[in-house]
């Protein structure tokens, strides 16, 4: 029995954190809101590919890193912590497993692993994050289909979080069917990945807010010395600390292919979504008017949290599914 990340998982996470600290500061996140901005994001994507993060779930025999969802969840938590404005979850966590599972029928995996092809994913005709950056798309409906460059068009959609680069995918060619993984399995991967990202977003908002309330003075003292503020942030901490093991277990269950994976993923998405939207609200409150500005960075994380809490199933939807899996 051991319920903690292994040393090499921690090492990869630390490596990614230090890369993102350097290459994905808040200015980069902000710049991603520009619909024409993309060149610097491309080079960041290239570094992630080089590090083996994009191909994390691809077997080594296919040129990937050969790791599993335990590590993917840690990586996506770091992506959330940095508010990485790239569709890493979709390309790494959904599209590549679907492509590999189907035996790479479009012959595109090498290009994706090299960081040359960003793949967006849309479910049931819905909004696709990263669509306006993407070179290719996986469209999930009753079937799963891959569309390469020139085989689809994108209608941009404005998210509350402009760095999401949302769009709707319209196929313009027959595309390549991807059999192996069921649409529902791919959706669950999205839910699991979003849960992990949410944890990172929440952790970062809490860190920002702790630093702020230590420095901000009112009535001649730091506002962080007020019990009301302490209790808000203690509640945020409790919520995140108890969501984290639920996400870690869901990742383990997914990686091991356990029979309770679906229930575990739904519990994780519900917990992480609730904990992080609660964190966003309390952190905004503790910042006072400062947080309610476009110029202050809290909003970048908060809006991403709103988006991710709702996408791939909201908390109530997932609790309903936990109930179904429990047989009630």
């Amino acid at each position, binding site marked *: *029995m*051991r*319920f*903690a*990340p*292994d040393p090499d998982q921690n090492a990869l996470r630390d490596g990614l954190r230090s890369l993102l600290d350097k290459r994905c500061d808040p200015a980069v996140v902000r710049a991603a809101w520009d619909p024409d901005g993309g060149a610097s994001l491309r080079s960041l994507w290239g570094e992630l590919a080089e590090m083996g993060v994009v191909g994390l779930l691809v077997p080594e025999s296919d040129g990937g890193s050969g790791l599993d969802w*335990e590590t993917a969840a840690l990586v996506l938590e770091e992506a959330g912590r940095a508010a990485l404005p790239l569709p890493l979850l979709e390309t790494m966590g959904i599209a590549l497993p679907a492509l590999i599972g189907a035996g790479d029928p479009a012959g595109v995996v090498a290009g994706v692993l090299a960081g040359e092809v960003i793949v967006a994913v849309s479910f049931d005709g819905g909004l696709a994050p990263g669509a306006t950056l993407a070179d290719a798309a996986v469209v999930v409906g009753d079937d799963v289909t891959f569309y390469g460059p020139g085989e689809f068009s994108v209608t941009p959609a404005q998210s509350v979080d402009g760095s999401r680069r949302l769009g709707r995918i319209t196929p313009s060619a027959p595309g390549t069917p991807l059999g192996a993984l069921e649409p529902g399995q791919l959706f669950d991967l999205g839910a699991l990945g979003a849960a992990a990202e949410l944890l990172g977003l929440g952790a970062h908002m*809490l860190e920002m807010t*702790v630093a702020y*309330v*230590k420095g901000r003075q009112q009535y001649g*003292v*730091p506002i*962080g*010395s007020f*019990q009301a*503020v*302490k*209790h808000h*942030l*203690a*509640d945020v*901490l*409790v919520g995140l*600390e*108890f*969501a984290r*093991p*639920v996400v*870690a*277990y869901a990742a*383990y269950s997914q990686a091991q292919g356990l029979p309770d994976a679906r229930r575990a993923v739904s*519990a994780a998405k*519900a*917990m992480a979504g609730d904990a992080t939207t609660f964190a966003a609200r309390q952190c905004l409150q503790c910042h006072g008017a400062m947080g309610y500005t476009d110029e202050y960075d809290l909003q970048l994380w908060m809006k991403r949290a709103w988006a991710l809490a709702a996408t791939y199933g909201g908390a*109530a939807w997932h*609790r*309903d599914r*936990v*109930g179904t899996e*429990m047989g*009630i």
Partner: protein
Amino acid sequence: MDLTWSEADKAFRAEARSWLQANVPQPALPSGDTAEGFALHLEWEHRLYEDRWSVVSWPERYGGRDASLWQWVIFEEEYYRAGAPQRVTQNGIFLLAPTLFEFGTPEQQDRLLPRMAAAQDLWCQGWSEPGAGSDLAGISSRAAKVDGGWMLNGQKTWTTRGAFCTHLFGLFRSDPEAERHRGLTYLLVPLDAAGVTVRGFGRLDGDEGFAEVFFDDVFVSDEAVLGGVGEGWRVAMATTGSERGLTLRSPGRFTAAVDRLVELYRQHSGHAVPGARDRVVQAWIDAEAYRLFTLGTVTAIAEGHSPGAESSLNKIWWSEMDVRLHEAALELLGGEAELDGPWMRGFEFSLSGPIYAGTNEVQRNIAAERVLGLPRK
């Protein structure tokens, strides 16, 4: 990450399960917080001890099984799954014993631990006073140095099962000049000593689960000091870690309670209250989160880390989740909820969780100051 049990752990679980199946009293015992119920619980404790299940994680020479912390988690899961009785010895074996293992002299350990394991000595906690609750450092009961020992005067209160216990572990002010955390001494007091008066009184549920304990020139010998004169605060804080954290509230207790809640929901699903299913599911997820969090804590302890202020987070979580779980049950029961049955009893008991062992307001201060690093003032 590896969540598979070793063969030894599986065998331990199987042995615990079959023993509990064969021995757990049926029907369930009445509350252990009345004189009659306590006596029945004591028989159960003796039964546990006879087959070495009373203190599984203790060394064998004191009546335990040298079980690992993982096996302790397994035992607790099986214990609550089997619907076994509440542990009326818990304040001794879960709160005092960890302190004795850490601070006791070999003589104290040899003298006290075997009798505690066998439920011959029954320990209650003497910390709170009329004037010192959350602000524990404000205690005023005194220990004055006399020839060969200490003379105790003062009053303790909210002493759980004090009216039924034989011994008390408590904090006393041994240096009247010292303030607050300084000048306190941790003392072990037999309740049959001359000058001790114990008066039981009713808790919220009406059972005589509380007591106040009066000390009028009570003499205890020097051997009654645990962990050094004037060291009481440091010694006592080692116990609060146990009380707030892992040992007193094992996950098995809550996963078993949620199983009963799910069963209750099934029985009432024909006329389910709107929203009830969502609350039942949330209760299940909350208990699962606590179970998984505990697996992380046990992993950390097994690898040599000691839980610090994080135990405050733990206490906030289990105590508030326990209240929500029981509220969900009462809602399902509808008009039957007010009956003085197990769910109402459980609800009343759950309400004590956010209060005892340091109120959750104090825990939130600790979490904010010691985990997040916010300024005290």
